[in-house]
């Protein structure tokens, strides 16, 4: 056993055209800058940082995978005493899995789609393939049930557990975890982190966990390294860091993470609910939406089955409020939004606009003024914005001729309108000519919000609009939404899986589970006196996450 598991010595990784003969001819841009770090064997290290901080690049460097167009600019990285970049391919392969294991994140399809779970294990275990069940058991999965399944037949949490079990299969001394919980439901995150902590305790391996989420790091690491722009800005024990972060950026990260109970943004504003009798803008009564989908069992498909995504839901959205809708995946929260804006037909029950208009009408049959009134912003702006279009084209309503009747005209005054629109969502006017592909994640989402606002909507449907964003960026977008609400009093339905995020913005919270409404009430009421045990558990998990 070596005392030092992982080591960095003024380690730098650069990107760009690398000219090996004339090192100076090309100016490389550094992704990692002169990092020095020592990780003693058997310890638990967390690396936190936002996207682009270089945290994943660093993790890959320890297994000698620089990635496309990246190269070691100078310095060394050692893993269990080996410099993986200078090892022969064969030697490197021998160490991978047995000495150091890298667990990739599951959201990105890290299991081979055409191989079953058992086949994955057989490859890694060789002669010891009969250990598969035991390993699956260790990560909390039922081996007999799952071994014949393929990746698409597993939930996100199950995939992540399988990946962890594959990593542990050959008893590595060092385990590197890349974002082990991103895109998973809060309950699942909790269970997986506990499972990881237990496995580490039992086996005693050196653990390095990379995440954008401080609360995740908090659960599995004793020591936290904060990265930003390829540099280590803070390196402290967990306690030290939570008590008194030494770097301003760490403090910013800590503050930006939404925590329960504190209405830290927009706490000062009055809400629509202060009025005596709130008027509903959307009213759903006994609304059910059945979605059909193929169901898979053990590689063979049984007949297409229908799931009731929204089940006898009765809910009102009041004019001028921000209604937060919270639920885990499969709770029907996105289905509800899609039904309101006419993308999915209700199966039974009614859903109506304030003036009695039947929202069961499909989007292509709605009168144009109704289309304008309801606008939706989607979770992933990478998918919803055309990267080849300029911001001007993306947000300009006159780009769609049918909207010109609302008095939008293409002229200088109109340009002013567009700039104002950008200003509303917190973007600079110069952005107008920039193309979608050149925007950051947060900028893209702001553009998507601007595009919705350009229609002067009366109801804004927000579907997980911050969940793809970094925590500081998320805080900014939430603040912008509140600012918009204050200025324009647009009614909003804000859907999220994160109760802390919802609580920081919503006037009322509706909790959905398996398509049913668990409860709905004023935010502070739900937080302080949850009526349903499910809500209580969500709050409990969120509290534990922020105070652990």
């Amino acid at each position, binding site marked *: 056993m070596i005392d030092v598991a992982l080591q960095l010595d003024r380690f730098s990784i650069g990107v760009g055209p690398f000219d090996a003969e004339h090192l100076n001819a090309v100016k490389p841009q550094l992704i990692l800058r002169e990092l020095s770090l020592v990780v003693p064997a058997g310890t638990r290290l967390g690396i936190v940082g936002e996207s682009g901080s270089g945290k994943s690049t660093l993790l890959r460097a320890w297994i000698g995978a620089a990635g496309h167009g990246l190269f070691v600019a100078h310095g060394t990285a050692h893993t269990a005493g080996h410099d993986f970049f200078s090892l022969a391919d064969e030697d490197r392969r021998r160490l*991978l899995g047995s000495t150091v294991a890298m667990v*990739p994140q599951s959201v990105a399809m890290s299991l081979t*789609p055409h191989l079953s779970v058992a086949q994955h294990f057989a490859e890694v275990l060789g002669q010891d393939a009969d250990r598969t069940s035991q390993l699956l058991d260790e990560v909390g999965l039922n081996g007999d049930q799952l071994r014949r399944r393929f990746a698409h037949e597993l939930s996100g949490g199950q995939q992540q557990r399988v990946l962890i079990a594959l990593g542990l299969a050959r008893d590595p001394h060092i385990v590197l975890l890349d974002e082990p919980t991103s895109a998973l439901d809060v309950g699942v995150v909790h269970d997986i982190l506990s499972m990881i902590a237990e496995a580490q305790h039992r086996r005693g391996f050196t653990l390095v966990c990379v995440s954008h989420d401080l609360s995740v790091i908090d659960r599995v690491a004793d020591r936290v390294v904060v990265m930003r722009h390829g540099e280590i800005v803070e390196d402290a024990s967990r306690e030290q860091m939570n008590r008194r972060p030494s770097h301003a950026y760490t403090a910013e990260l800590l503050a930006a993470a939404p925590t329960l109970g504190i209405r830290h943004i927009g706490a000062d504003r009055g809400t629509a609910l202060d009025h005596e009798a709130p008027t509903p803008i959307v009213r759903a009564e006994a609304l059910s939406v059945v979605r059909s989908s*193929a169901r898979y069992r053990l*590689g063979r498909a049984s007949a297409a089955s229908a799931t009731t995504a929204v089940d006898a839901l009765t809910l009102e959205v009041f004019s001028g409020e921000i209604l937060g809708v919270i639920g885990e995946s499969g709770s029907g929260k996105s289905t509800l939004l899609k039904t309101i804006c006419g993308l999915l037909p209700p199966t039974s029950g009614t859903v109506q606009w304030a003036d009695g208009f039947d929202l069961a009408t499909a989007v292509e049959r709605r009168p144009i003024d109704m289309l304008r009134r309801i606008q939706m912003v989607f979770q992933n702006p990478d998918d919803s914005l055309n990267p080849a279009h300029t911001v001007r084209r993306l947000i300009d309503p006159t780009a769609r001729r049918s909207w010109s009747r609302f008095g939008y005209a293409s002229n200088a005054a109109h340009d002013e309108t567009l700039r104002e629109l950008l200003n509303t969502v917190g973007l600079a006017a110069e952005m107008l000519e920039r193309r979608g592909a050149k925007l950051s994640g947060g900028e893209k989402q702001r553009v998507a919000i601007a595009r919705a606002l350009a229609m002067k909507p009366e109801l804004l449907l927000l579907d997980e609009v911050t969940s793809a964003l970094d925590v500081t960026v998320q805080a900014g977008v939430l603040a912008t939404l509140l600012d918009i609400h204050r200025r324009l009093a647009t009614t909003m339905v804000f859907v999220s899986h994160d109760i802390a995020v919802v609580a920081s913005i919503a006037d009322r919270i509706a909790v959905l589970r398996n398509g049913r409404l668990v409860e709905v009430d004023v935010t502070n009421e739900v937080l302080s006196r949850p009526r349903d045990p499910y809500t209580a558990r969500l709050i409990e998990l969120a509290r534990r996450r922020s105070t652990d």
Partner: protein
Amino acid sequence: MTAYLLRRLAISLGVFTVMSVLVFLGVEALPGDACTALLGRSATATKLAQCRAANGLNASVLHRLIDWASGLLHGDLGFSIRRGKSVVDIVMPRLRNSLALATVASLMAFPLAIVVGVWSARRKGTRVARAVDTLSLVLMTMPEFVTASVLWLLFAVWLPLLPGVTMVSSTASLLDILPNIWLPAITLALVVFAHVMRSMRASFLVTEERPFVEAARARGIAERIVVRRHILPAALPTPINVMAVTAAWLLTGTFVVEVVFNFPGLGRIAVDAISDRDTALILALTLFGLVVFIASSFVSDAVTRALDPRMRAQVAS
């Protein structure tokens, strides 16, 4: 699965019905008919009238179409006026020759294309891989008659190893035909090789970028296993589709090569049939072409499905 097969079969039948009507009308719209083509310069009004009466050409288009269709239902493909033989007798030996040609060309091209495609993808950026890549581009874009002429010059004239022109009849035994197959087969194989190789290479490179490949490598799995078990099954559907389309082309679109080498296949007779206004023969070849394309896309779908568990489920539902 059965429902899926039936649906596809129904669509294919519909396509064939529409196509046969179009072909019938198309031949009808051409100036002249089978009798003018048959009699050529010796045509006189009386002879034409006799010929038309004898072959039932005086009946309406619709009547003849129905006649032909009912014959087809009994397995009768009709009679070629020009050649004085039943269509089956004309087509069968040539179909055998075409199948032999396509088989030889496929066997030469496909396995090699897959191997070279993977090889060149794994050595991307090296000089030799770039050379292979450029060569395949040349092969792909060069007209077949140029490739054919060059091969003919090399192996039939300068190095007289292979016969440059087929001198045996279409009904000769396969053994007699075989020596004549090589040059046309190599010509076709080169074109097909280039297409399949390039799609294999491109698909391999795209698949290699996917996260599960990086994950497999990070688990320390040997590179040859990563290639064989993780990358290839996910990368193969694309070249398989290309192979299906080119295999169909090998059976139906090889006219140019057949002319250069005087090979007695189907491509040649299809063109002759049109200039002869030989409706029955044209229709038989149309039907054959359709069957080939349907069958090849069937096979490619089946293989793709076998490779991807998600497709299996989707198609079945």
